[in-house]
């Protein structure tokens, strides 16, 4: 079994990737504008809800319960889904999931259903790079979500969980459409762009015989599958084709239909700032004469199950992929999603990618945060992302310290020296004196500049006042000495 998330080629470390993103002014303007708009809409819709915090607590409790009994609920889902005429397949990793999908497509192609597939937005399919696998096997996947279509036509990568083409503005989208749809007359008016997309897609909805979807929720008690979306393309993909294949991560199951009441209030408000999604599709198995005649669910593990045994890591799997943490994140706001080197970006990506894959590919991601807590504040299922980031940083440090390079890195040596200094008053005061004396080399015009090592990252962008000659404790000691009765009886009394 080998877990892959997104493209297999090793992505650049976050600081390096972020640097190139920061150089792209257009990208930064687009990301700031888009996240501001969604963030404000979300805040408005959340403010209408007097029981928002109770909903969050309930959602968090449902997820915690389900994840501790995941084996039970997945088997219950499988049983009920198959009883209703669906077929459930289990995939340990990306390759298995793609092999299952391709096997099914091959079988239906032989039955004359063609080699084209219409797809409704699914991050899980990007996670396993399904489009690449399908194309390789001679099939043509067609993304029907507007943003996913833009990403696919532009040979691009999604930069946001909910709004994958958030980094593109109207003019950039117009140019992609002009080229791929051969529509030189197209303007950048939103109506014209939507109209072009609609015309392009309508033919495919009506003629392609196989659909592929993701799922927002699986309902264990009935075997039902739920997809929510805004454009109606999803509704067409899950109703018009003769065959429907749904790819879904194992963490998406909820015990009962009634649980959806909680999530369907939280999710749209958090994701797009809507009171409810324009399209909420729920289906159970197959029904003759209504919708697809064959229905398959591929349950994907791809590293998820190994997060189950530790409570703090398990919390990550509660994510409903609303993207609220991305819109709230001040780091994402500056860099956009591509800098995270994974299809899962922003704060949730920073904890999800390093846990699904080995830390090796993504050990810089837990550090791509100031721990400001804005993500935790907006998370509809109350995932304590800052806490998990710190937990993962601990893993990175422990693994680094085991290597020779890591043990002798400037960072580790500095941290060990600091720990030693903080461990004794005498060493701490000596370190203060050394710093005061040593800084003389770097003083220019009353500021510290060009500091060595890691501190150079500071002075590259910011000034720094020199360390004062007298520390607080120096002041305190001098004051105690100058008191007429000698040291005041109160000092040190707290120890």
């Amino acid at each position, binding site marked *: 079994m080998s877990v892959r998330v997104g493209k297999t080629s090793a992505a650049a470390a976050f600081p390096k990737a972020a640097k190139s993103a920061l150089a792209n002014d257009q990208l930064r303007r687009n990301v700031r504008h888009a996240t501001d708009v969604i963030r404000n809409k979300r805040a408005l819709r959340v403010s209408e809800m007097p029981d928002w915090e109770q909903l969050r607590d309930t959602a968090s409790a449902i997820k915690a319960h389900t994840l501790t009994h995941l084996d039970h609920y997945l088997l219950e889902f499988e049983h009920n889904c198959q009883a209703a005429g669906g077929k459930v397949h289990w995939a340990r990793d990306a390759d298995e999931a793609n092999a299952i999908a391709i096997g099914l497509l091959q079988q239906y192609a032989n039955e004359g259903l063609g080699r084209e597939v219409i797809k409704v937005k699914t991050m899980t399919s990007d996670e396993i790079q399904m489009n690449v696998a399908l194309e390789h096997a001679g099939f043509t996947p067609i993304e029907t979500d507007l943003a996913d279509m833009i990403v696919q036509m532009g040979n691009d990568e999604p930069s946001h969980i909910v709004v994958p083409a958030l980094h593109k503005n109207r003019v950039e989208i117009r140019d992609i459409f002009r080229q791929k749809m051969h529509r030189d007359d197209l303007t950048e008016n939103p109506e014209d762009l939507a109209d072009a997309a609609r015309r392009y897609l309508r033919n495919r909805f009506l003629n392609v015989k196989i659909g592929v979807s993701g799922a927002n929720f699986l309902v264990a008690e009935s075997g039902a599958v739920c997809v929510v979306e805004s454009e109606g393309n999803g509704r067409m993909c899950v109703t018009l084709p003769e065959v429907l294949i749904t790819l879904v991560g194992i963490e998406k199951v909820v015990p009962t239909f009634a649980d959806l009441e909680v999530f369907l209030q939280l999710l749209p408000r958090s994701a797009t700032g809507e009171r409810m999604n324009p399209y909420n599709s729920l289906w159970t198995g197959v029904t003759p004469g209504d919708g697809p005649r064959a229905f398959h669910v591929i349950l994907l593990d791809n590293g998820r199950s190994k997060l189950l045994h530790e409570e703090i890591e398990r919390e990550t799997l509660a994510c409903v992929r609303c993207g609220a943490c991305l819109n709230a994140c001040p780091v994402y706001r*500056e860099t956009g999603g591509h800098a995270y080197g994974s299809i899962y970006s922003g704060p949730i990506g920073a904890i999800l990618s390093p846990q699904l894959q080995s830390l090796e590919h993504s050990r810089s991601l837990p550090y791509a945060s100031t721990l400001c807590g804005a993500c935790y504040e907006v998370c509809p299922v109350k995932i304590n992302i800052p806490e998990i980031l710190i937990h993962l940083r*601990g893993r990175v440090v422990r693994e680094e310290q085991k290597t020779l390079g890591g043990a002798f890195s400037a960072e580790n040596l500095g*941290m060990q020296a600091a*720990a030693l200094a903080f461990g004794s008053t005498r060493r701490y005061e000596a370190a*203060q004196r050394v710093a005061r004396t040593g800084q003389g080399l770097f003083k220019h015009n009353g500021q510290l500049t060009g500091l060595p090592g890691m501190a150079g990252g*500071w002075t590259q*962008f910011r000034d720094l006042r020199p360390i*004062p000659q007298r520390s607080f404790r120096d002041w*305190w000691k001098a004051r105690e000495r100058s008191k007429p009765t000698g040291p005041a009886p*109160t000092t040190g009394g707290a120890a």
Partner: protein
Amino acid sequence: MVPRPDVLVFPNADVTPFRRYRLRIALFVACYNDTLFPQTGIAATHVLERLGHTVEFPLAQTCCGQMHYNTGYHCEAVPLVRRFVEIFGNAEAVCVPSASCVAMMREHYEMIAEAENDQAFLADVRSLLPRVFEFSELLVNRLGVEDVGATFPHTVTYHPSCHSLRMLHVGDAPMKLLRAVRGLTCIDLPNKEQCCGFGGTFAVKNADVSAAMLGEKDACVIQTGAEVVTALDNSCLMQIYGGLHRAGSAVRTMHLAEILAFTGAAQ
């Protein structure tokens, strides 16, 4: 003109009308304040003494362990946590003029003690934590004081640092204190709840992103036209100052305690 922080002299008035409680307050000044921002500790001492309390400064104190813990050096943070708990275990109240240090204690100390599997240590942590207060929390929520008798005739904008806002939930305590300062004009900081980009070692590990975030914050600070930007964390203020000064701005950064330490007598 706003006084330069490095030449601040705080008047230490003996008489005060605000003696509702008389506490023996142990000051945990925080290692970086001790070393880089002594004027904040001095100011906090003066304000608390002016209100009639006794301030103690246990000299054995060093660091709360935040830098190590948040960067992932969890083993290295444990002795520092133990050290803090031992030194301050018997304090009547602990005042910390650094919101992020208090957040470190409230969010992580219990978890650290639990992981150590040391029941006595855990009990000490649980007993101490309710007596640890961030500076503005102590004044407004514990001592019930809003007017500390300060006069500061300048325009000030307040940056709610992430730790004070989202982890300590200090709410409007700092604003209540600022509004009661004579002569002070408060100007609202646009987009104030957005992080300044400091984030501890984030500032050097991700220096480019940190600087971009700082650029947004400093633009908002400058937009207010205020003479002074204040906060409950000198770490954020060090970041904000670093960008402002590099850009040639004359806006000054002052910890809230420093503003509250000024009385008419000093001017």
